């Protein structure tokens, strides 16, 4: 009897050991690019082209983290990305939550049909809309402005869907009591529904933030001058120009990656929840 227990223990321990070894190996492979990026960013340009590769630079070149801001208008791009991302995140939370409340709680003709159309457009590729959008904006003279970067992205059917599903789970009793007290719908929305929906709003905000911060195609085509670029576009074009200055390119990459990694680490549970709710592509 004890023998069986013992072999089972040995087996469990061995299995655990195998799992750990595998996990550590894969984890190293997964974070290798990040480590290599940071390592390269701290090397002198001529130390980059060596074999075998050197992981820890002899003299870390922290100066790259100063230089990169001077070589390219990184600060401006940072500002652009921050402004555009915050504006779209806030805008989408507002329009989505209002519409979601309408769809979840109010009765009006055509409500379910409209919602169905929303759902139907969820999976459609953005690239189909991109050409008409571009020509509309060009007719309006909006190209290369913040308006072009922000306004076309203020409606988000996915966010509306997500919040509507959440609002449906909020008990109606609270609202009924407020209505009897003579509260307006807007007051109910802003004083009851929104405060109760913080987790859902945070999930959506996390997703929208990371999606917009990392987005590329749209800002690539609607901006045309260096001072209107966002970080991702700026970096991609920077790479085209300085294609062999790897330390500086890696420095720029580190700077681009930091905000979304920070947002992720602090909002991890919202992020996970969002993915499981049928989330968004990377």
């Amino acid at each position, binding site marked *: 009897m004890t023998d069986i227990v013992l072999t089972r223990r040995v087996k469990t321990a061995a*299995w655990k050991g195998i799992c750990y070894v595998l996990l550590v190996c894969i984890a190293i492979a997964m974070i290798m690019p990040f480590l290599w990026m940071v390592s390269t960013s701290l090397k002198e340009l001529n130390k*980059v082209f060596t074999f075998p590769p050197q992981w820890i630079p002899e003299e870390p070149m922290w100066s790259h983290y100063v230089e990169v801001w001077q070589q390219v208008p990184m600060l401006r791009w940072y500002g652009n990305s921050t402004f555009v991302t915050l504006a779209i995140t806030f805008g989408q939370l507002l329009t989505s939550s209002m*519409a979601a409340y309408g769809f979840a709680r109010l009765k009006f003709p055509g409500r379910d049909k409209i919602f169905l159309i929303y759902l139907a457009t969820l999976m*459609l*590729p953005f*690239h189909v809309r991109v050409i008409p959008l571009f020509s509309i904006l060009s007719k309006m003279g909006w190209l290369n402005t913040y308006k072009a970067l922000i306004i076309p992205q203020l409606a988000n059917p996915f966010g509306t869907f997500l919040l509507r599903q959440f609002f449906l789970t909020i008990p109606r009793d609270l609202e009924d009591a407020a209505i009897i007290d003579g509260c307006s719908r807007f007051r109910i929305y802003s004083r009851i529904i929104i405060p109760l929906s913080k987790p859902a709003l945070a999930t959506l905000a996390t997703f929208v933030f990371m999606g917009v911060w990392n987005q590329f195609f749209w800002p690539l*085509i609607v901006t045309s001058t260096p001072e209107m670029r966002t970080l991702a576009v700026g970096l991609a074009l920077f790479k085209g120009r300085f294609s062999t200055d790897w330390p500086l390119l890696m420095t720029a990459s580190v700077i681009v990656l930091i905000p*979304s990694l920070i947002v992720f680490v602090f909002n991890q549970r919202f992020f996970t929840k969002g993915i*499981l709710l049928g989330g968004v592509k990377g």
Partner: protein
Amino acid sequence: MTRRHKEYLTGYAFIAPNIVAFLAFILIPLGFSLYMSFHEWKLLADPKWVGLANWIKLLWFHVEDGRIVANDPHFWKYLGNTIYLLIAVPLTIVVALILAILLDQPLKGRIVFRTLFILPVVSSTIAVAVVWSWLFNTEFGLINAGLRFLGIKGPSWLGSIEWAKPAVIIMMVWKQAGYNMLLCLAGIQNIPQELYESASMDGAGVWTRFRFITVPMLSATIFFMIIMGIIGGMQAFNAVFVLTKGGPAEATTTLVYYVYNNGFQWFRMGYASAIAWILLIIILAFTLVQWKYRKKWVYGEQGN
């Protein structure tokens, strides 16, 4: 005005901001792009109605010297490239499954590992593609340095026709594995523990339990990941834009890249619209398949 009408109005007021933006920037452009696909349209000139000409050029064939030749061989080549890159989808799912199974074990520190595996997912594709183009560097890239340690001469990853696509696929798998891992993990944790316990009682080993419990119970999740992976993969652009610019010799030019080139490099807006619509039709087909089986997936989720 009755109370009911007032409620209607309130309802419309609540959805108004969203629906205005939705109409202006989603629904109308969608229809407009179909309309544009029947035109020849240089950006600044007036559109000229050409009927199905764009569509025929894209999808039809003609006979040349007794051989059947596509009217636009580029389109088919890029469609082929795009489909080739979809190899990343099953690979990602396999990696994700392995990760999820490992993370499902009662191990210390698995939260940390999980976080590490998701980092690529939340990273800017552009930034990591810049990093990967350095990793793939032929002479001094980390990957070929590693291969050199093993005595293998690494290929010119991004510069050769044979290796450019695998390189893009490797990066895509790395980038997306964590996303699918989360889905797998949720799926695995929804499997009733009793199934495993009773299987163990009957003497089923690790592999048997995996093969006959985990995989079937995850089938809905795996199906969902395949469809979503295909839908996302058909729209591949960002990684390719940075890694290879679609080259070498157009070996990694994707459909979306062709839309980009036609629409925003050559300003053939009508033709670009037609390509985009073909992409939409392909994606729509996969979406419909997914919707058809969605009930199962949702049921699986609520089954716990």
